[in-house]
């Protein structure tokens, strides 16, 4: 042991290496998909918030004199007080004489709310059930069979049934879209929990005497967040899409509420003569869903590299 005198520890490779790290935010802001998706979505949020000041009129107003106008034509519109206003119909008008531009812009609000709300609702329930199923072995079997059952019912069918039973309202539509998404989140969370619960740091927590609920909240839940955020964006995109489909089929929100699906449903009969009735809301819908999906892809690549390779 005569060699102890030399400062060997300083020679060790470990002390020579400096651990460099880039923060998650930096990585996110460098990713093109995140940037593009994020900017487009931010614009849409801005549009939905600024809707009243964007040259719009009340989207429920109509004027029989201004029916079926082409994009850019001028016409009149009657306010609730009975006044007649001169108005330029940027995207034309529908067969009731409503301003499609105003309806599409206000529709952004509905779509974003529905997308966000379905994602939040299905994630909250999905995470809760998934954590329980993954960590409590006895609950796993029964819970997953129930989830399999829910998954076997077509999403649109659940939505139609719910809307038929209850009244078509924003809440009903959100619940109707969220329910079929829950099993997907549960499966994802459960599979994540099954891997994380075997990690040594969870076992270390067990031997430190940490109670089960604390282990789930502190050690397991935070490590499921990244893939969950990614899954959330995809649910959001599909929520927006399904809402439009439901409204288009006439089982979503009441027809007077301006949603992209409703606008398209009304334009359907006259598609040959006035394709703009469907074209404009369709563009908005496509761009929104695309932006959310691109954002989701970017998030997946940065937050969850393992999953990015798999898919």
């Amino acid at each position, binding site marked *: 042991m005569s060699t102890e005198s030399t400062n060997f520890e300083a*020679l060790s490779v470990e002390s020579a290496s400096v651990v460099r790290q880039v923060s998650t935010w930096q990585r996110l802001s460098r990713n093109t998909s995140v940037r593009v998706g994020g900017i487009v979505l931010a614009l849409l949020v801005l549009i939905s918030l600024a809707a009243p000041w964007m040259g719009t009129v009340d989207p429920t107003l109509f004027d029989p004199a201004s029916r079926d106008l082409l994009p850019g034509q001028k016409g009149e519109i009657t306010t609730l007080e009975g006044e007649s206003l001169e108005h330029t119909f940027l995207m034309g008008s529908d067969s009731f004489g409503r301003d499609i531009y105003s309806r599409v812009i206000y529709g952004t609000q509905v779509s974003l709310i529905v997308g966000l709300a379905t994602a939040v609702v299905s994630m909250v329930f999905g995470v809760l059930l998934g954590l329980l199923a993954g960590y409590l072995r006895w609950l796993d079997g029964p819970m997953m069979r129930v989830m399999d059952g829910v998954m076997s019912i077509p999403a649109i069918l659940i939505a139609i049934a719910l809307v038929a039973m209850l009244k078509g309202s924003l809440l009903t539509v959100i619940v109707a879209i969220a329910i079929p998404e829950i099993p997907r989140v549960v499966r994802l969370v459960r599979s994540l929990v099954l891997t994380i619960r075997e990690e040594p740091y969870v076992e270390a927590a067990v*031997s430190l005497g*940490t109670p089960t609920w604390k282990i789930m909240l502190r050690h397991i839940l935070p490590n499921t967040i990244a893939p969950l955020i990614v899954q959330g964006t995809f649910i959001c995109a599909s929520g927006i899409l399904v809402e439009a489909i439901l409204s288009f089929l006439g089982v979503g929100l009441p027809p007077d509420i301006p949603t992209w699906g409703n606008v398209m449903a009304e334009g359907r009969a006259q598609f040959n003569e006035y394709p703009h009735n469907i074209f404009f809301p369709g563009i908005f819908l496509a761009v929104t869903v695309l932006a959310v999906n691109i954002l989701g892809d970017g998030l997946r690549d940065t937050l969850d590299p393992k999953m990015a390779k798999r898919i």
Partner: protein
Amino acid sequence: MSAPILEIRDLSIALPSGGDRSHAVNHVSLTVGAGEIVCLVGESGSGKSVIAQSVMGLLPKSLPVTSGQILLQGEDITHAPLSRLRELRATRMSMIFQEPMTALNPVMTCGDQIDEVLREHTSLNAAQRREKVLEIVREVLLPDPERIIASYPHQLSGGQRQRIVIAMALVLDPVLLIADEPTTALDVTTQAQILKLVLELQKRHGAGVLFITHDFGVVAEVAHRVAVLRLGDLVELGPKDDVLRRPQHDYTRMLMSSVPRMEVTERPVPADAPVVLQVKQLAKTYRDKGWFGPAREVHAAKAVNFDIRRGRTLGIVGESGSGKSTVARCIVRLIDPTGGEVLLGGDDIAMMPPGQLRPLRKRVQIVFQDPYRSLNPRRTIAEAMIEGPMNYGTSREEAMRKARELLEFVRMDASSLDRYPHQFSGGQRQRLCIARALAMEPELLIADEAVSALDVSVQAQVLKLLADIRDRLNLAMLFITHDLRVAAKVCDQVAVMSKGEVVEYGSAAQVFGSPSHAYTRALFEAAPGKGYEFGAG
């Protein structure tokens, strides 16, 4: 001496920008002659695998060769086109990988995979190829070649799979063989067989071998010459005995002094120290209740007996699947034993229900093998350190004060508390894990392969720390390892496990000095470089 088979001249390979250094390999020159085995040794991050990949032309695009040449039998292959490399691979140079399961295609039979090499590079017909495949399978000493070549990789053992990989590498008689940690994933007895096989085949085929390893026992066993790498620099190159016994460079001397000796240093210990843990007839059986047919039973541990006194270290030694980790996990009650007693002081915790067990948990703490997974990546070191004490009612301030004290004890900076695990290296993390365990003031500390994932120099530091802790805190330690050198260094008593049973149990001096069980003897016989004297110069 004839012209070298492989000549690496002044090779530099760049790392992507933003790393902690600019080069993975920095102006390295070395040669491998015909029939020569050159060992490339170094700790993780030394660039040894990168050199292997560069020779085979397997470097990823992010690691470009920035200067120097690689000559294979005089031909410059540094920037050879892919088509030329494809011709050379398997015929003139071939590679054996660390993990035979991932090096083989799981959906092709082993025979087909060897056959594929022949189909690509020769014009032999099917019958001739089959004859050749059988011949090489026989040469790597696999039993029942006909059955082996019809098997899929998962149907073979780890050692058999590695033999298949070796057969694939040697079937076309290459002049250069690159072995990248070929035995690291194998058990010590299997490792000994594979090393013997590589040596025999190398002699018979006369190939030059570039052998990459981090295990100095293996180096002592196989090398003719040794090249030592540190952070991409070649610090020492010379004949085996010069480098291992009379190292010139400080770094090599440090490495050599870190290699644990295979000899037991007996410590004087009071004979009347109280027993901390007593394990009686401990058993763990896994039952696979199928829906059809009889239940399958696997005895992971059966009738295990031992005890540990305060201030002593008991080592459990065994190969993978011997049940040593099962025993540790039963004692910590991460899994529930199916029989026997685990007496902690006067309490039998083997079957204790969770409610009663909780207050006792703090008395036994465990440090795991993988330092990268033992700390929750999303919690700071402070949160990890105070979690345990706070579970048992210590106030946050008191727990933090203790955490700072313990960090000092494991020789980490107090500023570590606010940082996250990914900001630390493997050895530092292992120190943090030890500190976290000590925060509970345990009577028994279990180290489950706690130094196995660490580089040899870091391993020496952590071993020293563990011995320090045991002496200063006077606690009992259960040390689980597959590495006999490490066991010899730290253990007072040793239990050798095989197939779920303790086959030999006694004082370290007795077990290492005069092993009585045949398995123990075989294990010692297989330890690489067992009789070799490493010197720090």
